[in-house]
């Protein structure tokens, strides 16, 4: 008797909870049900078979990442939180930097709102697993494009936004002028980095003896260099520029560059539609600079006669807007420029303060490497 009643009371309570769950769950149920489970899986597998790519792309049209991002209303972007100039967090809690601005570029293109970004700070070991897991839509974290990453990490590298390279910094009064002068020099370098591998490879090939002074982090390396424990400091030249400003001693950055480090956005393999969106959004900034369109003067282009610019900005040509068929609004370039700015503006805002010259990253018209396919 007693036991039965307890049981019934329990059942009553459970039933009530179920009723709540059912009634309250109504709104979320719709989103959960029709999930096409196979889409992502098939797409990933099919990338090795070129013939199947089109079909995978067809499937992606409906339930791909682009649709997911639009439905979510927010772009998940993997960034660096500890590299000034490229990605860090300021005292007010805002993510800022060159890479962060390209997250904003993609968000402006896809969602029409550069602020609709959710940033995930990542370190260099988590970045690819996180991308593969789909936890982030795009990885923009000073990531070097290499063949093995493209192949083994299932990463899909987009337009290179910054051409970096491994450089050298010496004390201002040093006699070292180039790599050839570094015979028997002590060189400060971080442990376990490609920087160290490059150093060993290049100096080994050229037969230059040297002493590598290895450190765990820049916080330890920096005072050692200032104290003169090593004559040379090597890392990416953008990093050297960032550090040289804060050291408080005269330094000189050599013109020798011993590696190629093209950095740019990365997406996961297997979603061509999304890759194209990210790629063209990124390239629009360079095209805008080439046309001389900036965030401040874009309104003056509203009645330009130049048909290329009209097409680029999504303005009507003879009553018709050119459709690129990328799956994002036709005025995506306008959104990018007015909300974030063109490539030159992004560079000036984030990297010029570190003392980084445009050099290789100038427009092709200025002798640099920034060259994008036409928007037509």
């Amino acid at each position: 008797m007693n036991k039965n009643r307890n049981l019934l009371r329990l059942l009553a309570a459970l039933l009530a909870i179920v009723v709540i769950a059912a009634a309250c769950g109504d709104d979320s149920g719709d989103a959960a049900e029709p999930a096409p489970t196979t889409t992502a899986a098939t797409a990933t597998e099919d990338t090795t078979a070129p013939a199947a790519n089109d079909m995978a792309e067809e499937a992606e049209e409906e339930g791909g990442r682009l649709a997911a991002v639009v439905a979510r209303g927010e772009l998940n972007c993997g960034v660096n939180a500890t590299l000034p100039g490229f990605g860090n967090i300021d005292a007010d809690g805002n993510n800022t930097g060159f890479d962060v601005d390209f997250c904003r570029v993609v968000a402006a293109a896809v969602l029409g709102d550069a602020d609709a970004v959710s940033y995930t700070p990542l370190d260099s070991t988590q970045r690819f697993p996180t991308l593969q897991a789909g936890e982030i839509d795009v990885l923009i974290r000073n990531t070097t494009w290499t063949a093995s990453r493209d192949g083994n990490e299932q990463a899909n590298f987009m337009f290179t936004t910054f051409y970096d390279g491994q450089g050298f910094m010496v004390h201002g009064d040093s006699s070292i002028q180039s790599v050839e002068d570094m015979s028997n020099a002590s060189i400060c370098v971080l442990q376990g980095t490609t920087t160290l591998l490059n150093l060993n490879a290049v100096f080994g090939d050229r037969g230059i003896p040297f002493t590598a002074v290895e450190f765990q982090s820049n916080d330890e390396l920096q005072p050692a260099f200032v104290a003169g424990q090593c004559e040379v400091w090597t890392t990416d030249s953008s990093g050297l520029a960032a550090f040289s400003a804060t050291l408080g001693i005269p330094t000189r950055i050599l013109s020798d560059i011993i590696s190629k480090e093209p950095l740019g956005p990365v997406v996961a393999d297997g979603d061509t539609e999304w890759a194209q969106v990210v790629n063209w959004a990124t390239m629009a900034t360079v095209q805008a600079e080439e046309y001389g369109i900036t965030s401040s003067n874009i309104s003056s282009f509203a009645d330009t006669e130049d048909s290329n610019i009209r097409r680029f900005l999504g303005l009507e040509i003879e009553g018709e807007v050119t459709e690129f068929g990328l799956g994002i609004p036709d005025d995506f370039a306008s959104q990018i420029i007015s909300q974030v700015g063109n490539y030159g503006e992004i560079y000036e805002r984030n990297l010029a303060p570190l003392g980084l010259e445009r050099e290789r990253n100038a427009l092709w018209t200025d002798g640099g490497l920034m060259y994008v396919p036409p928007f037509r």
Partner: protein
Amino acid sequence: MSVTNSGSGVHDEVSEVSELPPSHRLSPGDWIKQNLFNNWYNSLITAVFIFAIAFALVRTLGWLFSSDFLIIRRNLALFMVGQFPRDELWRSWVSGYLLMGSLGIGSGVLWRSAQAVAEEKGLPTEPHSWPDLLRRFWAIIAVLIFFLSFARTVPPFVGLATVFVAFFISRELGRRFNPAMRTRGLFFAGLLGLLSLLVLAGTGGLGALTVGGLFGAWTLVEVRRYADERGVGAPETIGASRRVRRWHIPYPFKRRVGGILASRVAAAVVFCGVWYGLTSVDLGGFGWDDWGGLHLTLFVTVIGISTGLPVGILLALGRQSDLPVIKSASVIFIEFVRGVPLISLLLFSWLMLPLLFPIDLDIPGPLTRVMIVITAFSAAYIAEIVRGGLQAVPRGQVEAAQASGMSAGKIQRLIVLPQALRAVIPALVGQFISLFKDTSLLTIIGLLDFLETSAVANAQPEFLGQGLVAVTYPFVALGYWAFAYTMSKESRRVEERLGVGVR
């Protein structure tokens, strides 16, 4: 005092008659001579230690006064709340007031009812004093005030002062509750706590938590009231209440259950109404995926403890169960979770879980998954600690309870668990403290916790590469220490009150 006086009076009298042992009170100089410099090697050790301590002290003071704390002054908000939007900081403060109100009322009510119980049983009652409260929480208060000393603007001062005022006022309020209204007082405290979440997080996923929490709390209150009505819970009435219940049910059994069912369904409808009401009004707010800093660290710890403990107790009981399914499920869960590092569980929830779902399915955010992992992890450890306590309860206790006709559930609830948990308080608190420090692992899955904030601040262009980790890490360590120390201090207090190791 009077006792001491009369004692010394007796002493004086006696000393005239018999010879007392010589007084051991030494002058400071003699004490030092006898204890620190009584032979050559003790003198050497003393000298070395004095030198070492003086060196450390001088260096520490030197660091304290020579360091530039600008990095902390600039980033104070980042350390406290991470990337929480700065123009919405009022939410944090209001939520803080409500939370402190909740804690105040809760502790006040509990104190009052504990007093009532003690009076009833003729035990010594604990005097209520504010200085005592300050002594108990001096570490947290001191560290918070130290943190505040870096603030550049007025609002943080006003905010923190108001937080304390909210606590003291509501504790005073809670103390005035009638002890019989304990449950209602606690329910009210819980309500305030959930309200504080709602202010902070608006209608996000926490809305559901609020409604669910309210429903759960309300059900608990109902069950409690139901039990109180029948005098269940007081061991001496158990044998009797069974008889009483059998013959004194005022209306038929079926109607009773029907009534409960109806009231639950009605409640469900009401709560769904509340839920729709809440979700249709946009309250703004920021879900916990936007939280960070010390706030996030503390929140994850509180959630880990408050959900891990009940689950852990259930697992411990399950492991002792005679039912093979429950027993093996508990054993497998505990042994699996305990056998895997927390990092790998976190990485699993972070990187592998999304792979198991289609990309357009909205699975819970990263922090929600982390909470689940941390709950599971702490539950597994707590289960083993509690199991140790369960085994320490003599079998005779269970047999005596069985002999007096208690049901299995009541034996656990009233006889076994109180003794078992009392015995393992030190180990439990050790687990809580270690969980608190384990939350720094959130860094590896891209969350900006209290520790990671230090790295982020050091990477800002104006502070980059200046070795300022020597400033930020001690600052962060101090924060961790204050809370961990208070936890362990409180646990010793609870142990003393419950007479662990004495009875």
